[in-house]
């Protein structure tokens, strides 16, 4: 769910549909990258300010790659890899008892 379904759904919405529509409007591709990143960040309100800043910066990265490459498939792959690595990292630190639960 976290590694495949959520990234595909989110990228389809933010870097796919929203980016396409907003990039074609008066705000242009740069404005679309910033706005889609902000909208994506708002979706992750369970995080603290640092986590939100991180999400916003990752959104800027994905948006820029979407613009350079013209490919949403690239951002889907990156998003899946990122979520898989974070999920793996959390599993390992939890299993080793490094993380208080």
């Amino acid at each position, binding site marked *: *769910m976290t590694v495949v*379904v959520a990234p595909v*759904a989110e990228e*389809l*919405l933010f*870097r*796919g*549909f*929203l*980016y*396409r*529509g*907003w990039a*074609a*409007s*008066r*705000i242009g591709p740069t404005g679309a990258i910033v706005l889609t990143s902000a909208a994506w960040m708002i979706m992750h309100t369970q995080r603290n300010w*640092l*986590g939100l800043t*991180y999400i916003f*910066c*990752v959104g800027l*990265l*994905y948006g820029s*790659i*979407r613009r*350079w*490459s*013209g*490919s*949403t*498939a*690239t*951002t889907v*792959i*990156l998003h899946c*890899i*990122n979520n898989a*690595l974070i999920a793996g990292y959390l599993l390992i630190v939890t299993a080793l008892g*490094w*993380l*208080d639960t």
Partner: protein
Amino acid sequence: MTSGVPLETTAPPKTREWKFWATILWVAASVAAFFIVGVLLVLPLLGMLPSELKSHPLTNAVGWLIPWFGALGVFALAIRLTGMRMRDYLGFVPPRLPDIGIGLAGLVVLFLWQCCCSTPPRTGRRRHCSIRIAGQWLRAHGPNYC
């Protein structure tokens, strides 16, 4: 031999793109579709399941996927109305390896930056300090909060 009748030329199909506000309205419609499908279809189905299946991860995943397909249907309709193919509108072109490489490098930089800036949660601070005192600094990455 050609007849005197002029050949019919087919005009390229008319396409249009949704702009700023129209995109927001379509997203709002897809969110509405997500909730409508969830309330009208998924919740009654969940109600019929035995209690031990309700908390199963697969039930959770399917419970999110079914409403998502409702939302996807709204996107498909919006894109169909533009006269473009879904693949072209959403940018589903094959990825290139250099782009993935650049993206991964960027993700690594951002992850390391987040690790360096993050403070351990209050509940984990005592453990963080004991790890540092024990000299196991690799396990307590980032600044010293002790």
